[in-house]
């Protein structure tokens, strides 16, 4: 399973893997928003938590279809499904690899982008904390979505349509925890809810995603 994790991370980081793509997309979204809403610092600072969370979410979405598509095309997904390693474990490792190559870089890069949006300084720590807690949920939910659409030729758009509604609770609690933290309020409740969602999703969805892949490989 560690071998699968390392393999997937290598594939993601080498040429054509689209490693930097998510980060670049995140940067562009954050840069575009001030062009859209105007350069007033006060307004930008107020909406910064929401923009950063939505931007990170969309950047996560961008690389989801790579999780299974290439393995499905060249047949290695069939091999993985019949391998002695449980498919659930493979799926979890793939989701983890997705997080390590997408969610984690986004989390680290986010504070730098927060400067661009003039976010209150109290929020920088919370930004890293909420994204670190929340982005694993995004990767694991996205892996389920990718498993649903793996057999489809043009699944990309459908994948977004399926996954985005599932992202709603994570986004709400993540952005709310960050907003409250940035404005100096108590944010333990949304933070715990966010952590609860991540824990539940990481524990349960690999099983569902593995079942979904078995249906698709039938």
């Amino acid at each position: 399973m560690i071998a699968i994790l390392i393999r997937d991370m290598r594939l993601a980081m080498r040429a054509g893997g689209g490693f930097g793509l998510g980060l670049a997309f995140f940067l562009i979204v954050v840069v575009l928003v001030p062009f859209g809403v105007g350069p007033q610092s006060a307004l930008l600072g107020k909406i910064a938590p929401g923009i950063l969370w939505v931007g990170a979410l969309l950047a996560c979405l961008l690389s989801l279809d790579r999780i299974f598509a290439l393995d499905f095309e060249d047949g290695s997904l069939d091999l993985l499904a019949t391998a002695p390693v449980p498919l659930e474990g493979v799926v979890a490792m793939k989701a983890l690899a997705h997080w390590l190559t997408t969610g984690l870089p986004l989390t680290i890069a986010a504070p730098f982008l927060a400067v661009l949006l003039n976010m209150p300084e109290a929020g920088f720590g919370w930004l890293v904390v909420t994204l670190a807690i929340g982005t694993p949920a995004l990767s694991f939910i996205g892996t389920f979505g990718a498993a649903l659409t793996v057999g489809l030729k043009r699944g990309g758009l459908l994948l977004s349509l399926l996954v985005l509604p599932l992202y709603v609770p994570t986004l709400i609690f993540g952005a709310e925890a960050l907003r409250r933290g940035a404005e100096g309020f108590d944010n333990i409740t949304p933070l715990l809810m966010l952590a609860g969602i991540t824990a539940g999703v990481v524990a349960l969805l690999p099983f569902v995603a593995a079942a979904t892949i078995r249906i698709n490989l039938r």
Partner: protein
Amino acid sequence: MLKGRHMSFWEYANPKLFMQTSGRFLPWFASLSLITLVAGMVWGYFLTPEAENFGSSVKIIYIHVPAALMAINAWMMMLVTSLVWLIRRHHVSALAAKAAAPIGMTMTLIALFTGAIWGQPMWGTYWAWDPRLTSFLILFLFYLGYIALWEAIDDPDTAADLTSVLCLVGSVFALLSRYAVNFWSQGLHQAASLSMDKEEHVSNVYYWPLLLCIAGFVLLFIALVLMRTRTEIRSRRMKALIARERVA
């Protein structure tokens, strides 16, 4: 109905028996729903007084509330039929779920639109990010994704399996969203004060025609689901016939 006394509910999973029975009951459901709807609407629209604070705009309640109820109940029905398909592999069940989805989506849209029309004179706005409204918008997105997944997959059994899984996972997340939205909208926004608890507002004058309209919508939903399921079964048979002819 020779073996009527020993028949279990699961025998309706047999498409032939389902077609026979549903064919017999469909006209009843359809005409009953028409009668109750017309009676409820006429009673509600013409024979009840106008409310003090609401004027005549209150009467949209006779469409809004039943549609909203059916929007949720249709998803519940899809959840149950999806489970039945996953556990017992009855094709009729999967097709019923498929048939119910567009109806549920339409009900969600009706609830959203009538709510917007009602909201304008009452709240001064067509839309507010109130928990109830937001949850319905999210429900609409879930319906969209579910229907799109059915459309995207060619193999009928794979499509039934995958949409069933999506329905189960989606139900959990829809419930989570409902609570998340409740939490979010009371957090910094104060829109929750806009939300009216409908039950508290409805006085007895409106209660009975409303109940009649709800019954009408339930019957209408059953009739539509039966009709659409029958259509699905027929189109499945057509495909089988065409495939057989091609082989011959």
